[in-house]
């Protein structure tokens, strides 16, 4: 699912290297103090031309990247799946659900009947058509082999998918849910042909596989049959950099044309390298969120949860840990969802009030608690350190334990009183289904609220947009009032690329810089 990220990239040296590089640059006359909020103009609308090899540095390839889209769980895996495969729907450049292989996904009178109509003329890279049978096969394979989407889409009944004609099929869901079109955006439900095997990864995506060196690099060639038009670049290479500084150095040294998702603190390094490079930064719904486990002390007490949310200075977190590249969160997810509750007042830091809440509730301060987290992004550790400092002012004595991701997701996962996760890139319903409602499979907070669940159950069955929006607003109000996530910051996607490229676009609700859409990017003539 789009929010999960078992990133393996270990940027061991960043804390030491970044200051060194920035210092060196400053002494060379760079201007690292330029305002990060002033977004640079994206590449000019000049027409890209066909051909060339586009080399993209990403910090997250791993040997665990699956070529089987249904098994994708890593950041690198998502990047790869986006090239080889297509989904029925996707989160578009505005962050809203748009159609991809599907021409339309329409509910019936109730939200348990859905009709999917496929785009005309899409073919797999082997020439076979992307038809209704292939879509049905994709879902049947997922449920027959009990692949992960069978957990994330429990409402799909593989036996109740009917092929109406070559381009039309109907789904009768086990329970009505309007999140169906949202869920279809997940790369894990990319459409694959009958007889699919990851050893021969045939998909309908913009590129086809050329060479795969797991964890090191992966090379693609343009899919000449791509329904969206042949990609501009003839070849695409994704090259893995364990170290964020090396990634930026490679860009400046001309070894790659694009550095995808660079560390915010390295922006000055790129800017100092001259006008041959563009830094493009845009807000996304991705977040590093703190999870307060309500089954553990002290967060079983709503007052303590409220106090911690008040203790956090969101703007300061972004400035100090993310070099200013981020946007403040309001303890609810999915800011790009059309139904996001904008009427909730922005929560401001008030450590004095937080402290008072705790004292009034009879706590002896400080409250001791352990925070367990893995360096899920290059600046996650920094974020946690600032967070701990801020919470201290409000009377929390937080011990930050940074572990590697295998340890983090090991047997202890789910038992940490306080932890950090990488989520987002989902609509409100998908996010709720995964991490908030009763029996959500990936809810590390264990928070559960009957009123919320009732509203959710009603909302997912409500086809009428206005009525549903009202219910969603109430859901988010409850999360805001008594939820267990501290959604304090949303991350920016920061890409740096050579001015020899054009055709870059923003995908605020998709993981990875420019949502890993490389087919529209080409070289300027």
């Amino acid at each position, binding site marked *: 699912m789009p929010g999960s990220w078992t990133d393996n990239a270990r940027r061991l040296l960043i804390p030491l290297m970044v200051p060194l590089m920035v210092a060196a640059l400053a002494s060379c006359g760079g201007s690292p103090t330029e305002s990060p909020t002033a977004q640079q103009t994206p590449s000019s609308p000049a027409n890209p031309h066909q051909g060339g090899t586009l080399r993209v540095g990403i910090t997250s390839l791993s040997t665990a990247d699956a070529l089987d889209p249904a098994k994708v769980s*890593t950041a690198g895996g998502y990047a790869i799946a986006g090239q080889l495969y297509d989904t029925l729907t996707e989160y578009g450049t505005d962050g809203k659900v748009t159609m991809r292989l599907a021409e339309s996904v329409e509910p019936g009178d109730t939200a348990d009947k859905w009709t999917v109509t496929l785009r005309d003329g899409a073919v797999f890279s082997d020439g076979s058509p992307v038809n209704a049978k292939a879509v049905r096969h994709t879902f049947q394979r997922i449920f027959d082999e009990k692949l992960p989407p069978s957990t994330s889409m429990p409402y799909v009944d593989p036996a109740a998918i009917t092929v109406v004609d070559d381009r039309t099929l109907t789904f009768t869901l086990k329970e009505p849910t309007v999140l169906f079109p949202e869920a279809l955006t997940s790369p894990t439900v990319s459409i694959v042909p009958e007889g699919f095997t990851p050893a021969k990864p045939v998909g309908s995506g913009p590129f086809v596989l050329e060479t795969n060196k797991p964890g090191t690099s992966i090379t693609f060639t343009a899919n000449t049959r791509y329904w969206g038009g042949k990609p501009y670049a003839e070849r695409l290479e994704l090259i893995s950099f364990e170290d964020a500084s090396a990634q930026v150095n490679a860009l400046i040294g001309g070894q790659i044309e694009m550095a995808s998702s660079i560390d915010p603190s390295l922006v000055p390094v790129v800017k100092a390298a001259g006008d041959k490079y563009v830094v493009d930064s845009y807000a996304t719904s991705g977040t590093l969120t703190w999870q307060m486990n309500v089954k553990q002390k002290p967060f079983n007490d709503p007052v303590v949860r409220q106090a911690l949310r008040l203790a956090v200075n969101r703007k300061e977190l972004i400035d100090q840990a993310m070099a200013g590249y981020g946007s403040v969160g309001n303890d609810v997810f999915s800011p790009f969802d059309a139904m996001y509750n904008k009427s909730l007042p922005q929560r401001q830091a008030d450590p004095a009030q937080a402290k008072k809440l705790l004292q009034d509730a009879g706590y002896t301060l400080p409250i001791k608690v352990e925070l367990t987290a893995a360096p899920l992004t290059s600046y996650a550790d920094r974020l946690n350190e600032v967070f701990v400092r801020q919470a201290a002012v409000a009377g929390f004595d937080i011990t930050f334990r940074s572990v590697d991701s295998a340890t983090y997701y090991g047997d202890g996962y789910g038992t940490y009183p306080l932890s950090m996760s990488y989520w987002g890139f989902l609509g409100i319903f998908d996010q709720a289904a995964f991490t908030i409602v009763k029996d959500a499979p990936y809810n590390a907070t264990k928070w559960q609220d009957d009123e919320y669940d009732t509203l959710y159950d009603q909302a997912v069955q409500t086809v009428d947009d206005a009525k549903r929006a009202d219910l969603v607003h109430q859901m988010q109000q409850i999360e805001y009032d008594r939820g267990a996530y501290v959604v304090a910051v949303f991350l920016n996607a920061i890409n740096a690329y050579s001015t020899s490229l054009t055709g870059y676009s923003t995908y605020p609700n998709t993981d990875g810089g420019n949502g890993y859409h490389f087919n529209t990017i080409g070289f300027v003539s």
Partner: protein
Amino acid sequence: MLKEKTTRGRARTRREASTGWPARLVLRRLITAAAILLVVSLVVFFLTQALPGDVVHQILGQTATDEQIARLRAELGLDRPLVAQYLDWFSGILRLDFGTSLTSGTPVADLVGDRMAATLVLVAVTAAILLPVAFTLGTLAARRPGGVLDHLVSGAATVLLSLPEFVVGILLVLLLATNIWPVLPPTSVVSGNQRVWDDPRLMVLPVLTLVLTAMPYLTESVKTAVRDELASDHIRWARLSGIGERRILLRHALPNAVGPSLQVSAMTLTYLLGGTVTIEVVFAYPGLGSALVSAVADRDVTVVQGIVMVVAALSLLLYLLVDLLGALAAPRSKGRAG
């Protein structure tokens, strides 16, 4: 004086122990090596198991459910008893089959083959520059303790030793690749099926960094060994017998200093084999070290085992080679052997 004597005494004992029929020496060392490899494989296997978390959790991450964890564990054969897993793996090793990576499902040999070649080339090129330069500088500096060259070597060594590898690496990048005088590629990334040595320019900065960081220690060791030899009784006798300084240095002192210096060289090279991780990170050099770090982080036990076994075997081979060379170089041992 007393100290020098003991050093020399120990060196001689070692040499005496290793004399005898070279074939017998080799055979004995090979049997020891096999035993060491067995112990290494056991230690690594069970240590990796003892790490918190496992490959299944790492692959599935926060979207893991109990059912999927159980399924993947069974798929990868991790639900079998540890001893069975170990024996399976070990019997494969005996047939030179390193198994498949738990995370990617590709054969370990395919996954690390290229990376091993890249590391071996890196170490070989580094050694080809490092050894002659360090031996020459060390010997020349030892000839006049307290002389200009001695001071220069010690001074440079102090500076370089105080700089961690990655700092030297980053400074070189800033100096020669990105900022001051950009003439070299800043990283060693390769395209598709290209290998890092296809474009020698990609190797310059990593090799330079390794040479600079390994040089001080090795040069100082050579210097000390040669200086000790020059101060020894038999050299004094040689001097009294009127043999020229040049001949004393090249024919008497240096050959005896080669043995201990080669030991240090071997240690340096073994360190480079598995210890180039920082270099690989700074330069994105596709070598064994970063593959090992990733494999440990992923709990990809078969890959960890494969890399450790190969590095251990190569190190043992290197030490054997060095012992043989040392035995051949030292004139006194040669005499006794005959």
